[in-house]
């Protein structure tokens, strides 16, 4: 294990990678004491730039590089510094080509193995890439992955209409709504929720959920493909994440044979609170801790034979 050394922007370089949907921008953090390990970070859709909310991925990249990993954090085509154009993120249309561009770059460096970490939309995309090309990575970590089993299904941080109405009767909420702007914003949220409920009841796909639907078979199929290829995979949710409840149903049913200790190929980790969207500094810190621990645990695993890197890099 390499010694820990502080990393900052001085250890980083910016680059663009060719991609079919537009050149993809990324930042590579080069460790002062390279261990031969490499990590690809795939951002979420809400904060799709390579920084993610409150520079979560910047902090994670520098933390991992301090322990010896070469880290590439990407931003999807059409987002941030990347070229190209997108209209919306759709879970059933993951940006696999962007992930492959990142893997190509890392595997062209002097690294022995690449571990991939995806958050939110990035988790879906990383999983889709891993399912199609399991030989390209050593391990996979999926953080706060959206698990939507039907269009318009539960989304994290979404307050239901009933909850929103009930909130207005709480003393704490009434205190906050003494401010006229907060009152106006609350009214706007309530109207949005009521409109959403009308849309759901009328059978029309809700406006804000259209881009979030995904074929409910895709997630189990992809997880199973990755497991079948022997790629160790960890999924991390906050205990209060709305998607965690959906994922637990999958574990209790179709994916039960994959989960530890039964199959040992799919590790399910939970952290206290709500990690979705990393809406608190505490959630961000928890995600970083879990991801760093996962990467550290992979450093001692045998290097898998990888597509592009297999000829160039010896196993460590």
């Amino acid at each position, binding site marked *: 294990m390499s010694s820990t050394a502080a990393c900052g922007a*001085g250890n980083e370089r910016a680059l663009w990678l060719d991609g079919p949907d537009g050149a993809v921008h990324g930042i590579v953090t080069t460790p002062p004491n390279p261990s031969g390990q490499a990590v690809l970070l795939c951002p979420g859709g809400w904060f799709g730039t390579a920084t993610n909310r*409150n520079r979560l991925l910047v902090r994670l990249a520098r933390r991992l590089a301090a322990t010896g990993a070469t880290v590439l954090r990407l931003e999807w085509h059409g987002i941030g510094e990347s070229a190209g154009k997108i209209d919306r993120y759709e879970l059933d249309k993951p940006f696999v080509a962007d992930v492959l561009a990142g893997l190509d770059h890392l595997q062209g460096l002097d690294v022995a193995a690449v571990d991939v970490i995806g958050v939110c939309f990035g988790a879906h995309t990383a999983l889709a890439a891993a399912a199609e090309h399991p030989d390209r990575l050593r391990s996979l970590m999926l953080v706060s992955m959206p698990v939507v089993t039907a269009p318009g299904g539960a989304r994290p941080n979404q307050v239901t209409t009933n909850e929103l109405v009930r909130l207005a009767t709480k003393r704490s909420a009434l205190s906050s709504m003494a401010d006229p702007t907060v009152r106006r914003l609350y009214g706007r949220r309530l109207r949005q929720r009521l409109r959403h409920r009308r849309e759901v009841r009328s059978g029309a796909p809700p406006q804000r959920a259209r881009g979030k639907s995904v074929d409910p078979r895709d997630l189990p199929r992809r997880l199973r493909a990755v497991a079948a290829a022997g790629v160790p995979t960890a999924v991390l949710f906050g205990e209060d994440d709305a998607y965690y409840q959906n994922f637990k149903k999958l574990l209790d049913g179709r994916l039960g044979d994959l989960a530890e200790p039964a199959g040992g190929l799919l590790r399910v980790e939970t952290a206290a609170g709500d990690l979705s969207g990393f809406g608190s500094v505490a959630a961000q810190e928890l995600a970083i801790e879990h991801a760093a621990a996962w990467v550290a645990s992979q450093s001692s695993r045998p290097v898998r034979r990888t597509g592009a890197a297999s000829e160039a890099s010896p196993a460590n």
Partner: protein
Amino acid sequence: MVTTAWTVEDDVDARSGVLADHARGVRWETGFLTTPDGELFVSVHAPTSTVRGAFVICSPILAEAARNYRREVELADRLAGMGIVAARFHHLGAGHSDDAGEITLDGLVADAQMVAAHVRERSSVDTVGLLGTRLGALVAARVHQDHSGAPVVLWDPAVDGAKYTRDLLRARLMTNLKSGATDGGISGLKAELEQGRTVEISGYALTPELYRSLKGVELAALLGTPSGPLSIQEMNGAGRTRREVEALIRQWSAAGHRTASAVVDVDEPWWFGATARMDVQEGQTTAASLVSATVAFVDECLAGRP
């Protein structure tokens, strides 16, 4: 446009990435600028031939930065296409830049001044135009004092530090409605900051240092004596221009400077849906009108048209 065919170029140096659009004569370079306080992430869009001028784009901070990101990219790309070097950057303590202690207004201004000096040297221009959004408008206004006579463009500017802080604290109240946290309202949160405690808003930290540095700060005072063209684009769903903005426009017009102002219809407050995803959704509408109006204004300024 950002969507045109770009070619990934060989490195200018070992730490920069370069894209080129040869048909339009535009280069887009990202990398790091070394300053005494740390390294700043800088993204420069530049024409490959004659340079007509230069602009530094001062972003909003915290969650608002993500919401505005792609608009700024689009703008910089358009400016480069008309012969203007346009630089965007991440402040120290934010984005890809280095950490450098707590963020304060003085620190934000120092970052922008470093980038402006870099751009001036690189493009061989005398003065650099400034564009700032929200808190970035206060930064742009202050840096403009060093670039007298150059154009200033402000997108939905914070008109003073107190109102800006109040907007942030309102966002905290809204996001905490669900958890039922009792913050004691705006005054309770201000008391926290006064006592030196950080207030967290949607996963971002509003520190006492930043809060204190914004006290008593006013956009009009930072802009100082009217000097050069001024454009202010407001963003709200009410179609209303704030009276502070009207006063500024009147003042600069009366002093004989070119001015422009407009209101862009954006119904969502900055801190709600303040995400790159919202940025994408708004991209076809808000960005188009903001960027087009700004490009037209800058072009008129540089051409010296009345």
